[in-house]
């Protein structure tokens, strides 16, 4: 019996050992009450339900989401008996749960980080257009990851993809994702990091609103693209990323060109070149035909001119034809014209020999 007598310090130590053994890391879900921060270092609040209230303590740097009284949270930590004999729950992680609390924490942190300029548009970098080395952070068992890889492989190839397998939901997910971001920044040569997570409830996706994770994304030297949830889901991680894809599949589409479109484009270019050759041949043929037609027209015009000249001459000859003159009643006198000589008179239809009687000048 005497062996069981403790000093207060020993007793507290023994109780804490027992508590640590029995409840080394437990989760408590409840509502925040009496939230306060002391000296900017220590956080105190109660987590309560309808009947019970448990006092909680944590360091300020471990607080990764804004808290307010009335918010529903899950806290992770260990129970402890303090040296003042008071019971306290030492929290090492806290996560808002329930739609209202998640939204409230989201809005508070969004405002804080926006005011800091963490989401400024001019800080966004453009993803490399020709990616050959890609880092992916996701859970390899998740449907979103499978969708991402499926689309990536269907669209393009030749990329060396390094996958960091992490949790993508739950209280441990942010730290794992942060470690993966750090790993890629320090130990790899990837050109971009894709953070991938399929659809889920607001609670499932709330780890992407973790302050430290959002800061790690913004601080990454390597450009980050997020493909988290669905189109309508917006996380602070999305706002901090250089590029936000609406879904995991959309992230794969943004990162890669489509080889089928490229194949079609190449075929189309070659077909158009062939069509161009045919057009050029047609143009050349038309040019030759035009020349032939032009030469033909010139020959025709020359022939017509010659033909007209000949007709003109024929007309002239016809005018000068003696027979035509005789037909008009004129006569031709031939032979020596002297008194007493015989001359020949030719009319249109007669030839007459006549004697010249007298010759005198016309008046």
């Amino acid at each position, binding site marked *: 019996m005497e062996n069981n007598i403790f000093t207060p310090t020993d007793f507290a130590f023994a109780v804490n050992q027992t508590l640590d053994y029995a409840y080394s890391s437990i989760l408590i879900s409840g509502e925040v009450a009496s939230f306060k921060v002391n000296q900017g270092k220590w956080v105190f609040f109660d987590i309560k339900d309808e009947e019970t209230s448990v006092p909680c303590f944590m360091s300020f740097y471990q607080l990764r989401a804004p808290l307010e009284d009335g918010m529903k949270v899950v806290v992770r930590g260990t129970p402890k008996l303090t040296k003042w004999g008071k019971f306290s729950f030492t929290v090492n992680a806290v996560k808002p749960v329930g739609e209202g609390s998640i939204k409230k924490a989201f809005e508070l942190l969004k405002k804080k980080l926006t005011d800091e300029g963490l989401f400024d548009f001019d800080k966004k970098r453009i993803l490399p257009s*020709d990616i050959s080395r890609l880092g992916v952070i996701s859970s*390899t068992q998740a449907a979103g990851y499978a969708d991402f*890889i499926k689309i*990536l*492989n269907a669209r*393009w*190839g*030749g*990329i*060396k*993809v*390094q*996958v*960091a*397998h*992490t*949790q993508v939901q739950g209280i*441990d997910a942010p730290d*794992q*994702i942060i*470690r*993966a971001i750090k*790993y890629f920044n320090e130990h790899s040569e990837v050109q971009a990091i894709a953070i991938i997570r399929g659809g889920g409830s607001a609670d499932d996706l709330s780890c992407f609103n973790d302050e430290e994770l959002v800061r790690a994304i913004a601080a990454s030297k390597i450009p980050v693209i997020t493909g988290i949830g669905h189109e309508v889901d917006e996380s602070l991680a999305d706002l901090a990323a250089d590029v936000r894809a609406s879904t995991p599949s959309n992230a794969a589409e943004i990162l890669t060109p489509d*080889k089928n479109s*490229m*194949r079609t484009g*190449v*075929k189309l*270019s*070659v077909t*158009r*070149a*062939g069509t*161009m*050759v045919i057009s*050029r*041949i047609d143009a*050349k043929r038309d040019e030759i035909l035009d020349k032939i037609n032009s030469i033909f027209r010139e020959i025709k015009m020359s022939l017509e001119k010659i033909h007209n000249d000949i007709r003109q001459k024929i007309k002239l000859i016809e005018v000068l034809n003696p027979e035509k003159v005789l037909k008009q009643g004129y006569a031709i006198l031939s032979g020596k014209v002297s008194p007493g000589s015989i001359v020949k008179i030719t009319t249109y239809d007669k030839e007459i020999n006549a004697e010249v009687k007298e010759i005198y000048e016309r008046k």
Partner: protein
Amino acid sequence: MSENKTLNQKIEDLDEKIEWFYSDDFKLEEATAKYKDVVKMANEIDKDLDELKNEIEVLAQDFTK
């Protein structure tokens, strides 16, 4: 075409060759040979696209710690 050329380089080469058909340098006498050349290049690109595969490595690193 060199075996060492990347797909993008091959596509750039093809685009350059196709440009000739639209340029003032076009000569009907050379068109058939050049067209056969671009068809060959396009087939090579098509084959390369078929053979493109991503290399996926899940890192052994444990990110839980």
